[in-house]
């Protein structure tokens, strides 16, 4: 954290590399959702328009697969980064789900329902962030498996009967829908539309958040930085 940042009351929340990964993920997931749902709901006139816009079903498939390959490349890079880089290892440790997260979740429920006066105090990543992170990672891995099965249908059919591929198709589509709901309803609200950061948390572009915001929303992280003398 540079001196200029601190004097402006800002702390870094997302490093440049994470911001790039996040941006790639955003673009690719949106592209996959558009091309995927156009096929899933091909009866719909908007879906028809999208498919025609992409140059027919054949080209739609190519766009979808290119995006999928890039997404997997992004994922592989991310896994290596989290496992082997200094920054990644630190972040990964912060992302492990621990007992405290479950307690925090229950505590926040109690608080929101008016049964408790204490709102849980979160570190850099609270239960919401962790749920999102593992949900998205696990979801991408699972949807990739069914996706690759369907892509290499000739190869898959050597080992699996037809109904397994029918099943893979169903899972792929519905899981995509579930993931879409999670990302575009839950993630957008929690991170951007949430009253604390409305209309947008700028950290996905600038990487920085205000010290004030950090103290309010992630008090344990604030205190940790203070102890380390970084603030």
């Amino acid at each position: 954290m540079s001196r200029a940042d601190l004097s402006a009351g800002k702390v870094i929340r997302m490093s440049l590399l994470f911001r790039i990964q996040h941006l790639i993920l955003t673009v690719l997931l949106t592209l996959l959702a558009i091309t995927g749902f156009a096929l899933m709901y091909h009866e719909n006139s908007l879906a028809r328009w999208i498919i025609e816009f992409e140059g027919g079903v054949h080209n739609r498939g190519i766009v979808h697969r290119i995006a999928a390959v890039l997404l997997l490349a992004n994922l592989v890079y991310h896994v290596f980064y989290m496992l082997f880089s200094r920054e990644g290892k630190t972040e990964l440790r912060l992302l492990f789900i621990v007992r405290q997260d479950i307690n925090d979740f229950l505590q926040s429920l109690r608080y929101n329902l008016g049964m408790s006066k204490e709102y849980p105090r979160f570190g850099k990543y609270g239960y919401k962030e962790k749920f999102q992170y593992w949900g998205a990672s696990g979801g991408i891995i699972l949807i990739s498996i069914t996706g690759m099965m369907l892509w290499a249908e000739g190869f898959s059919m050597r080992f699996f009967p037809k109904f397994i591929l029918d099943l893979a198709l169903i899972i792929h589509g519905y899981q995509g829908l579930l993931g879409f709901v999670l990302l575009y309803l839950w993630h957008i609200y929690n991170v951007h539309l949430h009253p604390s950061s409305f209309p947008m948390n700028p950290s996905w572009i600038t990487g920085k958040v205000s010290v004030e915001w950090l103290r309010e929303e992630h008090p344990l992280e604030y205190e940790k930085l203070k102890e380390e003398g970084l603030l």
Partner: protein
Amino acid sequence: MRKVAFAAVLVLLGGAFLPGLARDASASISLEKCTLCHGKPEFRKLLVDGQIRDLFVIGDTLAGSVHAKKVCTDCHFDVSEIPHREHPKRVTCTHCHYKGNHEGAPQSDNVLAYFDSIHGQAIARGNTKAPLCQDCHGNHRILKAKDPGSRVARVNVAETCGKCHMEIYAQFKGSIHGTALAKGIEEVPSCTGCHGEHRIYARKDPKSTVYSTHVSEQCSTCHGSIKIMGKFGIETEQVATYKESFHGVANQFGSRTVANCSSCHGVHDIRPPDDPLSMVNPKNVPKTCGKCHPGANPNFAVGKIHVDAKNKESGIIYWTATFFKWLTIGTMLALVAHIFLDMYGRTRRLRGER
């Protein structure tokens, strides 16, 4: 003077009526004259290709047909002297069957449709083997298409087409449609049921009813109808499930290489799945799928092909789809609830701080 005028009137009237009388007279003479030669049962001609052409015609030949009241020269109007020196030309039906004709001959746009069809186009290009009206409708014994005796009646039309399309006719006779037709089942399609009557086009012509992207629509006219299929205990969901499948979607968006109904079920040789000769018999499925998916194995036949995730009979696929549906609905509700709770709690927190 008066006599002269009277004579003139007579002449005028005669001019108006006599041709009619004369025509009747010439008609009867014509038939008699024609049958001088054509009335002999052994009157026939050996054609170049070795076929025998029967030229035997008697007064009764047209009786019972739609042209019962016509005489030879009404159609063979190029015969002006008897015996005719030249070979009479092929009869042109449009001589009478045109719009606004005075004969009262029925006229529809079918003749125009025919000229646009593959047969009409072949004729226009000078193919003498291509069929004219009389090749399908018959020559002397033309009956209304609804008459079961007509050569173009639904029960007979396959045989009529089969005169030229012999191999296809043989395939069709063994198919489920052909055998059902022979049993006298009314709903079953003959050639014209799928190909159209006068509007017959080559299957690679986008105007054709059996063009690759039109096939499913064509089959669904009967196979999508519960009213028709219910009679024979055949499911109607096949069309809808096809349209939902990868094949069907690609087909709807204009892919011509993707499988349509007939790619798997056959064209003229469609047989029910339990027939060992059927292309969709489980034993033949690997070979059928292998046409497009090289190396297709018996795995292709394991599980229903026309699978409907919304139907309980689809078993595990139905249950997985239902599970995901409720999982998604449940997650959405939980998330929305969490969002509202969070907003509510936050508002209270802010109020407390103030």
